[in-house]
């Protein structure tokens, strides 16, 4: 009997260790599993059906098998440098999954041991209780690992990890739409601050009443695009505009676009394709002119995209910002092209790709915000505008994305 104690204590240790590191992991961006956890940090977890587990187990065996082959391969000296490094690269990709698989196999072994213990200790009440509770915990842990593994096996959008560009544009509704565009823009600013993200205004075009006809910002932080991408679409507002004397409720709309950030290498930007214009005072420029106008306009010839930025105080900074926006736009075009050439895509199912779809209604008289895609209504509209509780929607949308991915995972297997 005594010998059974050791594995139990050890297994306890293993589990408490893995649990203890779990919340800390979330703040360490480099940890592979943490990315997954952070991205899907939601109360609601998908249920793993026996069928799904069976499918997953097949995949896991395949990964283990592949891993073993590669391990053997890189230990054979006769292989060429090229083959070696290719194998090594693949191994690195498998490493995160392998870590989880190893942990899963260990816990499964432990579960077997505990099951035997339970069946053998029916006459020792204390021992039985202890073994049963250990077994419960072990099964929980197995489920946790399986969930993590499943998530790591689901297809990922490479852009999820990226920073993003936010664009808010007043739509129908005139001045009131511009005022709401400003409210929405600032909602994202406050939300970003709460998340500890960097929110850098790129450009603002004001309306007559100091609302925003158009506003854009660069948002930087961990997995910003993955979190915000579902915000793309039409946001509708119903309220009494401050300009309205008769107290009639108006409906107006604002469109939001979230683009993953990209750099000049991502989009293979070529200098020859760009035309950069700056403000010219008409005269000879240079030492002749002193102007604070450092506006920059960039035109990308192949696509005709034009970006102009003027709010920075140096031409260099205006140009840098304009390039950033241009790259994001080109990258998005390329992504959409790739997406449309693939079949049913997750984000399409949820509608993140569709800019024209109405995704949310902000009803001020009733104090509620409704997301039409997940059918969730939130009742503290003021908090929402302060950047609170946006996670209610975001988490639900992420969960839905995950469920869709799981569905296609089991159907393609």
């Amino acid at each position: 009997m005594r010998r059974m104690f050791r594995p139990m204590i050890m297994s306890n240790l293993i589990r408490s260790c893995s649990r203890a590191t779990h919340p800390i992991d979330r703040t360490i961006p480099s940890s592979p599993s943490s990315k997954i956890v952070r991205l899907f940090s939601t109360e609601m977890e998908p249920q793993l059906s026996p069928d799904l587990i069976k499918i997953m187990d097949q995949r896991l065996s395949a990964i283990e098998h592949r891993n073993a082959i590669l391990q053997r391969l890189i230990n054979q000296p006769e292989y060429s440098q090229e083959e070696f490094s290719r194998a090594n690269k693949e191994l690195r990709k498998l490493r995160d999954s392998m870590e989880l698989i190893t942990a899963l196999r260990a816990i499964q072994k432990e579960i077997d041991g505990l099951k035997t213990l339970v069946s053998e200790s029916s006459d020792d009440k204390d021992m039985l209780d202890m073994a049963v509770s250990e077994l419960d915990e072990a099964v929980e842990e197995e489920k946790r690992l399986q969930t993590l593994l499943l998530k790591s096996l689901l297809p990922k959008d490479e852009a999820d990890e990226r920073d993003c560009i936010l664009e808010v544009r007043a739509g129908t509704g005139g001045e009131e739409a511009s005022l709401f565009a400003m409210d929405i823009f600032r909602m994202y600013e406050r939300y970003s601050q709460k998340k500890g993200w960097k929110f850098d205004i790129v450009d603002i075009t004001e309306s007559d009443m100091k609302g925003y006809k158009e506003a854009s910002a660069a948002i930087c932080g961990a997995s910003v695009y993955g979190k915000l991408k579902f915000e793309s679409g039409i946001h509708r507002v119903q309220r009494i505009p401050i300009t309205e004397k008769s107290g009639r409720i108006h409906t107006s709309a604002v469109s939001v676009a979230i683009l993953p950030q990209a750099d000049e290498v991502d989009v293979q930007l070529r200098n020859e394709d760009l035309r950069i214009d700056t403000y010219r005072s008409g005269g000879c420029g240079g030492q002749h002119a002193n102007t604070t106008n450092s506006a920059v306009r960039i035109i990308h010839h192949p696509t005709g995209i034009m970006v102009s930025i003027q709010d920075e105080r140096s031409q260099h900074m205006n140009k840098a910002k304009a390039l950033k926006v241009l790259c994001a736009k080109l990258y998005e075009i390329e992504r959409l092209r790739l997406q449309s050439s693939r079949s049913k895509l997750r984000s399409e199912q949820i509608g993140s790709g569709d800019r024209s779809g109405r995704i949310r209604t902000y009803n001020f008289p009733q104090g509620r915000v409704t997301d039409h895609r997940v059918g969730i209504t939130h009742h503290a509209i003021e908090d929402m505008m302060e950047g609170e509780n946006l996670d209610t929607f975001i988490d639900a949308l992420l969960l839905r994305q995950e469920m869709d991915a799981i569905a296609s995972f089991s159907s393609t297997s």
Partner: protein
Amino acid sequence: MIRSFRFTSLLSAAKPLRSFACSSSPAIEPPQCSSSSSISLRITHPKTPLFLRAPSHAAPLSEVWKWHGWAKDLASSVDDNSSPEDEDSLDSILLLRELKWLIEDSIEASDHHHPVIITGTETPRGDDGEKKSVKLRASLEELYDLWRQRIEKRRPFQYVVGCEHWRDLVLCVEEGVLIPRPETELVVDMVEEVVRGDEWFKRGVWADLGTGSGAIAIGVARVLGGCGRVIATDLSHVAIAVAGNNVRRYGLEGMVEVREGSWFEPLKDVEGKLVGLVSNPPYIPSDDIPGLQAEVGRHEPRLALDGGVDGTDSLLHLCDGASRMLTSGGFFAFETNGEKQSKMIVDYMTSNLKDSFSGVKIVSDFAGIGRFVTGFRL
């Protein structure tokens, strides 16, 4: 709710640490110039730009609001007072943007009163405006005065706030020093390109002649990234002081050496050794000086602008010097008055100095004007 606009954050510009900032009290400021060639008895203390001053003034929000309203009206009124065909007139849209920046530089941001509240369209509610006080880096009287100078005296905005945002830098400027131009940012881009192509350029000595505020020298030093050295020269005493101060603010004392003197005169020790030579010398033809835009003609130093009869006096001198000063393979880039001068310089270098240089060419600025001449020492 206060409706207001947010400023594009200053933080995105590479602002140096406060500790490098020039002190607001001249008494505790160390001597400014590290002039090697001439010993001067006058010691010039660079002025502290608004944004680096301590927020030691306070005013009720309502008063700041009043000032802002007045300043806006003054800015908007310029359109009525000028005829559209007048080339040299103020533009109210630009002035309103400058006003935004003036506020950004002179009002301390804090949780309670971010500069944005000043630009809101609503008036302070109730007696809020009386009670709330705003911390300022200049007194309200001074702010009235500064804005009047901007509009009535056509004092350049950069002198008003004491700084110019140039590339990713914020450079101190003041009367007596040319305000760096956006076109000149490209000189640093060209250096960056050359350096990226060949690491050799990183390890050698560079020179920026007629450095003014030190803009090009500091930009180049940052491109060289720690290994190279830049010598910056100027004839103007104020320029030397201001450049030295800017170099210090960016913590580049170890890399950029500021020397006082005329063109190559302070560079005898590095003759034939330079790997790079850059300059934006005065190039405006003397006859054009009286007709310059008010901000330039009335306020910027003539020494920084006047290039002699056809504007090429300094440029030609620099071409001759470049053949002596550069080592084989060394790079040069000069800014010129435009197409005509650039062609003249290229002609001169490819005829009179044809055995000294290769790859001499004209590079355009973003307005499409042939603004720069670049090339390599054979």
